[in-house]
């Protein structure tokens, strides 16, 4: 029966090709446009590490200016970060800061080039499930002993060593020699949740070194630095200042560990207050990945506005579909009259028209996928590839499924009234005219 009704739907489409195509087009445009914006929201507002996002926490210690009402700083001071590392109170923990440096390749054929890196600690890699192609993360002792070790990305390894296993090779960075201990496999979470301060959608860094080396080797910091009070003169003055430039993540496995760590933070802050630091009211907090992305408003306002506009566009397309389905079904009144006179139940008439509406919805959905794919390509073109990563702007399997389902569902719902009207036609009137 289902296939018979499907065949009827196809026949009906061919009888009214312009009207039917108009409907398919309206659904395709509405659904397509909506899915373009949905895809942007889905990825940009998504959870980049769903397996353990609830166990990873970004720290907040409110070291801000007591004379203003400003939000607590997004990062930690050097003083707090080093104290936390020393205390070693979490299951895993890592300070991280964005740095830059000049990389001098061993081969004389390649000119030295500027590179973005990240100072972090051994825990960074297991905490964030970072995959390795060759080698391993450095050992935790390397952090303590200031060993000059480095982990590089797959791309940098391609560039420097043609993709060969480069573990053990030397990397000359910012005038210092580092030993390569690991090469990452493809890893580029969107959004770049572990550092949302410095454009959460740009490409990540290419080299990772122990965070403890940033200060002794005088690496230039290339991330955001914020000071509410001018630091005292000299490098020491800066390190002891209230300038924040360190992001700090901890991994806590359950609620107990979370409560314990917060308690530890409060104790630490209370102790600092006794030394005359942290003049604001105590405001320590832990934000898990999803909370942190939400708090830092990683999803741009633009996509939020576009979502609302796209929803209205979809509404217009569906209203359009209701009107067109009404015309189409009422245009078939005579045929429906004949079927009813021959003994068709209202139920089977209803089913037939639901299938017909669903058929049009499916066609609209398939065309809508093409519209969405084209729209996403268009967005990629107008955003350009030099401002931020755009490789994630494409249809993905969940979006394809949602598109088709939404198209069929929306068309059938939009079709309820027209279907109801079609099923309640008085056969006698239409039989007379035959």
């Amino acid at each position, binding site marked *: 029966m289902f296939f018979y009704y499907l065949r009827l739907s196809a026949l009906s489409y061919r009888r009214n090709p312009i009207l039917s195509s108009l409907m398919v087009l309206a659904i395709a445009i509405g659904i397509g446009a909506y899915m373009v914006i949905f895809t942007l929201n889905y990825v940009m507002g998504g959870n980049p590490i769903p397996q353990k996002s609830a166990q990873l926490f970004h720290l907040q210690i409110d070291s801000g200016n007591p004379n203003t009402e400003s939000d607590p700083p997004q990062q930690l001071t050097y003083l707090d970060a080093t104290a936390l590392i020393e205390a070693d109170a979490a299951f895993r923990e890592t300070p991280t800061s964005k740095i830059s440096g000049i990389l001098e390749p061993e081969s004389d054929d390649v000119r030295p080039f500027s590179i973005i890196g990240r100072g972090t600690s051994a825990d960074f890699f297991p905490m964030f499930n970072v995959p390795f192609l060759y080698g391993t993360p450095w050992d935790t002792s390397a952090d303590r002993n200031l060993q000059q070790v480095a982990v590089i990305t797959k791309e940098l390894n391609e560039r420097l060593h043609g993709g060969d296993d480069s573990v053990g090779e030397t990397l000359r960075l*910012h005038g210092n020699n580092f030993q390569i201990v690991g090469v990452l496999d493809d890893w580029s979470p969107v959004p770049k949740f572990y550092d949302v301060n410095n454009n959460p959608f740009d490409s990540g860094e290419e080299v990772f070194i122990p965070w403890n080396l940033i200060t002794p080797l005088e690496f230039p910091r290339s991330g955001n630095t914020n000071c509410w009070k001018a630091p*005292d*003169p000299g490098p020491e003055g800066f390190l002891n200042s209230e300038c924040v430039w360190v992001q700090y993540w901890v991994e806590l496995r359950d609620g107990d560990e979370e409560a314990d760590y917060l308690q530890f933070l409060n104790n630490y802050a209370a102790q600092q207050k006794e030394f005359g630091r942290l003049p604001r009211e105590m405001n320590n907090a832990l934000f898990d990945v999803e909370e942190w992305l939400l708090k830092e408003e990683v999803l741009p306002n*633009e996509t939020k506005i576009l979502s*609302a506009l796209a929803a209205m*566009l979809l509404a217009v397309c569906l209203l359009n579909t209701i009107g067109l389905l009404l015309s189409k079904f009422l245009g078939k009144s005579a045929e429906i009259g004949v079927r009813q006179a021959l003994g068709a139940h209202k139920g089977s008439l209803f089913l037939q028209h639901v299938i017909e509406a669903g058929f049009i919805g499916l066609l609209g959905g398939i065309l809508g996928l093409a519209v969405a794919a084209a729209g996403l390509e268009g967005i990629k073109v*107008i955003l350009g590839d030099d*401002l931020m990563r755009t490789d994630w702007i494409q249809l993905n399997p969940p979006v394809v499924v949602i598109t088709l389902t939404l198209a069929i569902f929306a068309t059938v719902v939009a079709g309820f009234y027209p279907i109801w009207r079609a099923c309640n036609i008085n056969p006698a009137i239409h039989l007379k005219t035959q």
Partner: protein
Amino acid sequence: MEIGPILRALTRNKLGVVLIALQIAFTMTVMVNAVFIINERSKAMARPSGLDEPNMFYLRSTGFGDQFNSEVTEQDDLDLLRNTPGIIDATPINAIPVSGGGSSTALRLEDDPTLPAIPAAVYYTDDHALNTMDLNLIAGENFTSNDVLYQRTSESRNFGKAVVSQTLAETLFPGEGLNAVGRTFYNGDNPVQIAGIIERLQSPWPNSSFVEQAMIVPLNFISGTSTYLIRTEPGERDRLMVETEETLASNNPNRIIRDLMSMNETREESYRLDSAMATILSVVIVTLVFITSMGIVGLAVFGINRRRKQIGTRRALGATQGEILRYFMLENFFISGVGVTLGAVFTIGFSIMLSSLFESPTMSWYYTPLGMVILILIGQIAVLGPSTRAARIQPAIATRSI
């Protein structure tokens, strides 16, 4: 006039009216708000930065290795650049206006941290900055080369003089205008005297709340990296960009030259998201108007086909083609009227929601009535074709059996 019959006929097809009216209402909401957003962004993009952007570019030099002496290199580079034919002037600077990255500070009128602070962008540079950026000094004077201090990056940032933008001067000393020259403000506990006022200089952040509050200070940081901002004679920029990069890269093996970019490219990049948003919204508007017009045409054709016999009867009873045309045009006018009235409510509601959610400016009053007129016109144009065809229906149809 047939207003009475039209309205009575409409009440017999309530769903058709509701469908079209809702489409028009949503279309209007999206269109008017989108046009407003596009206009706001274009206005922001059109603000001048104060610089002679078309003739300017910049690049960075970063040294490496033990042999690199950044102080000597920077002085040599600047001498070379300033003596290059075609280059008007060059200046070392910590941040590029409009670029999105830079340094800001909080200023107060006294050395008292509990006073409210005024935010301002700071350009750490030297006495050539004014000439290089072609800024218009409207009061006071530029600082001299003797005023310029040189410091290592991580040291504190004390400077005694500043050339401030007119907006910053006005914010610091309201009502004093150009007489603010010579007045003192505090950067932390460090007193700073206003040496001069420039007509306009934007901060590096186009979207910040203090985009027009900026100052130039005679303090130059010695670190491994120097950024040079360069102004050329008109028409010489593109040639000099290539040549300067080559010259600087080859005259010192212990540094690399990077981030070569013209100010025009910088502006394009900084406003890329805004122009992308404008493009996307334009596409949405065009699509929506197209779909709504199709909907109006579709339902009009449907309505006319259903009433062919009545139209024929009216024609047979003496109605002219013009009267039939007018009937359907008026009918659409009433439906659109309901639509745009509803649309006005939606539009204003949505606009209030946007401005309160995103703290964006509120829409001027004339957007809504203008949108109403435009959508009624679109409806009239869309229904013109079907109505003309309806008007051509032969009176003879009335006498034929169904």
